[in-house]
């Protein structure tokens, strides 16, 4: 190994704890991908912190050979925010489930995104509360039957991407637990992005919600029901690579190239870096029914981060005032001397 630029392998990020998730749980694949993504990034384990809330998914930090903190339900975003402000040198990951991140932690989630704190939020969306054994979550569809909704829910779900855009987020990516390559690509991009990055990963809970994403993720339909967006490339998809997304007024439309007069020239090119989130939002809202579900990096736009803003202000004010100690500062104010 070279002295000045150590290389890391996935194994360097793995702790010695045995992994306790159910066999077949989608979390295993996400964990392995994260180890690989970290090796690709090359940030040393001791410069990496992984902070989670509570839930099956939130157990993840124990399986990392980084600094890790398994905290309390819903609060990982706030804890990660404090950590990053205190030590901006480190790369900070937040691990949350759909309940942890969007129900009890929904407020912290939107504020972390709005504030643009430089953390990487991995949202494990299994549309269920796994750890508490199967209640519906804020991402469960209307009518979803679970232990706490025996007659079906009577409420509409959040679409995580919509919250991210509502909170004016600058990075949104999506993947599926079994799409290892895509997951790794999106995680690496999320970490390289400066600011709050949200990565939604559709995850299968084999025990309480098995197959919830099947309508989209099943091998037999996946190519037609998903589209892998890549910056600078045409938005094409389908088992034969002959389908594309085109503009239809203000909306999007899926077409087959060569049919109805559509040619490759009509197919849109993905621009993840354009500041306007208008198209990004439409892409992220595609649900796999009439339009394919988008995976990959949907939005990746640079903006000043909260932590950089804090550092810059501290530097500026310190230079201007020139105090070295508390005493200096107090003595510059109103005082009197008693001899």
């Amino acid at each position: 190994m070279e002295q000045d630029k150590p290389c890391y392998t996935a194994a360097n990020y793995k702790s010695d704890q045995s992994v306790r998730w159910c066999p077949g749980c989608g979390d295993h694949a996400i964990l392995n991908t994260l180890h690989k993504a970290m090796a690709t990034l090359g940030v040393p384990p001791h410069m990496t912190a992984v902070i989670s809330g509570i839930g099956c998914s939130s157990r993840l930090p124990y399986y990392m050979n980084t600094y890790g903190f398994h905290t309390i339900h819903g609060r990982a975003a706030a804890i990660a925010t404090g950590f990053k402000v205190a030590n901006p040198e480190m790369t900070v990951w937040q691990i949350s489930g759909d309940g942890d991140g969007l129900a009890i932690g929904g407020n912290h989630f939107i504020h972390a995104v709005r504030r643009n704190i430089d953390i990487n939020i991995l949202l494990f969306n299994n549309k269920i509360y796994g750890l508490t054994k199967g209640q519906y979550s804020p991402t469960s569809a209307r009518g979803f039957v679970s232990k706490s909704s025996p007659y079906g829910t009577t409420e509409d779900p959040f679409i995580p991407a919509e919250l991210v855009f509502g909170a004016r987020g600058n990075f949104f990516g999506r993947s599926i637990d079994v799409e290892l390559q895509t997951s790794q690509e999106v995680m690496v991009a999320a970490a390289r992005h400066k600011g709050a990055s949200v990565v939604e990963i559709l995850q299968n809970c084999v025990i309480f919600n098995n197959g919830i994403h099947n309508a989209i993720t099943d091998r037999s339909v996946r190519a037609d029901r998903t589209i892998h967006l890549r910056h600078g490339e045409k938005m094409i998809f389908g088992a034969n690579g002959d389908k594309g997304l085109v503009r239809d007024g203000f909306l999007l439309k899926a077409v087959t190239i060569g049919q109805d007069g559509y040619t490759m020239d009509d197919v849109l090119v993905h621009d993840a870096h354009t500041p306007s989130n208008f198209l990004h939002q439409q892409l992220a809202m595609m649900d796999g029914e009439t339009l394919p579900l988008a995976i990959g990096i949907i939005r990746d736009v640079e903006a000043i981060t909260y932590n950089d803003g804090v550092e810059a202000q501290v530097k500026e004010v310190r230079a201007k005032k020139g105090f070295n100690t508390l005493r200096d500062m107090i003595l510059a104010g109103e005082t009197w001397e008693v001899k």
Partner: protein
Amino acid sequence: MLEKTNVKVLDKVVVRFSGDSGDGMQLAGNIFTNVSAGVGNQVSTFPDYPAEIRAPQGSLSGVSGFQVSVGRGVHTPGDQCDVLVAMNPAALKQNVRFLKPGGVIIVDVDSFTENDLKKAQFKTLDPIAELGLEGFQIMETPVTSMTKAALEGRGMDNKSVLKCRNIFALGVVCWLFDRDINAAKRHLNKKFAKKPAVAEANSLVLDAGYNFGHNTHASVSTYRIETEDPRPGIYTDINGNTATAWGLIMASEKSGRPLFLGSYPITPATDILHELAKRKDLGVKACQMEDEIAGVCSAIGASFAGNLAVTSTSGPGLALKSEGIGLAVIAELPLVVIDVQRGGPSTGLPTKTEQTDLMQALYGRNGESPVAVVAPASPTDCFTMAFEACRIAIEHMTPVILLSDAFIGNGSSAWRIPEADEFPAIKPNYLPSDIDKTSWKPYQRDAETLVRYWAIPGTEGLQHRLGGLEKDCVTSAISTDPANHEKMVNLRREKIARIANNIPELTVQGNADADTILVGWGGTYGHLMTATDQLCATGHDVAFAHFRYINPLPKNALEVLSRYKNIIVAELNTGMFADYLQAKIPGKTIKRINKIQGQPFLVKEIVDSVIDLTK
């Protein structure tokens, strides 16, 4: 030098400025305080705000007060005032009960209009007769018209002119107490540094007020106030919340750990956030988070990252932070939680003082969740105890709750700025250099103090995982083993108990040999100390012990208390500290003095109750 009729020489005097909440009474009071402190008087202030930001003008609910005591041996803002300034009928009506018999009332007679009298719910047009103020010395002062006259021809609009009325009243008070008018002007110029025209107008009005007193040779008592002989040094006027913020900064300097604050605004604690937000000039990172939970959680994250982490709030916010504090307990991370107590339950009395969060601080969490609790005794002691809270948190790897209150948080005193070496170094419990890093475990601890070592993230080779799940006491891995859990519960409790080895012992004031000991804690110190002095001076000997360290108690505390025949605990709640002590001293019945009115004690109440309880 003015010739004054009737000069009284006093150890201390109490002045109460009162008016509409828009009348600038706090500013007038502050300037009077600063001018007095500047000539070596001890000062103690009590701002008494209404809960509404802008209640209807002239109404009884919109009255704002600022009481200050200046002189020698000043520990409290005083039970009653010698001089009352009342800017309108409502202020007069609300505040006359605070005036000593024979005291001086400076009242704006221009405000005695039918409309204003009606708003203050007077039934007649003669408020002085209606309130029965015969026993007082009334200085009928045309504050409004004289202020207008002083500013005539300056082209100011009526609203701006009226804004200077408070300074006219201040001028009269300065005359009454022979205060240096130029010192007051310096404060005005500083306050309005960015608005020279306003500063100039106020200076003129100040002179007008002063001259009014002089020219009318008002035949009321004037005063000469004795000055204290304070310790040499450089002084400043400081309120408790600012002192708290500065104590934290001092602790950051003394520990070498950068200061982080995660907070959410709440009365009466917000000024700590305001002050620390300004202190980016000293490298402080103060983050206004989205709620109190995020406040404490961001602090916990910052603590994990190696900062001196603090969250500040009041009672309702402390309730929201409970789960987070529990996380810091089990993760054994340093964390300072500041609760500037106010009246409860729920939103309660947001601007008023109480000591009703003691049980919440001690026990308000799920599970066996011990934390250290400390409480400052006075505005200036907020500096020392904020420092102490940080020292205990860092040296013992634990959350510490600092129980301040609205009275000392908003109250102010003259404070000698400590020299650089006056406070000790704070020593974080870092991994000893001889420890084997490869076998080190995060919950490994010092055998004597039971404190785990603090491995700061970013350090190579010390990666570790913390969490809210119970950990095995040897391997630090998650554990649900029954015996291990009990062992960890006891370890965490014993770790807090051993803090007693690292805090000062309890001292006894007053007459230590008396049969009776008066006991207090936190922000009531000034009143209890003054009451003790008065009791001892009038043949009712009492000892007095005041607690600033609540959990753990000082090592000698129970032994000291057990020496006395009568133990009387005085506190601004229904008896929480008394209950806490009673459980530790089962043999004796602890007597109690309690007040839950959102107001500080009056010295007289304590004196009378102690005499009563020891009859």
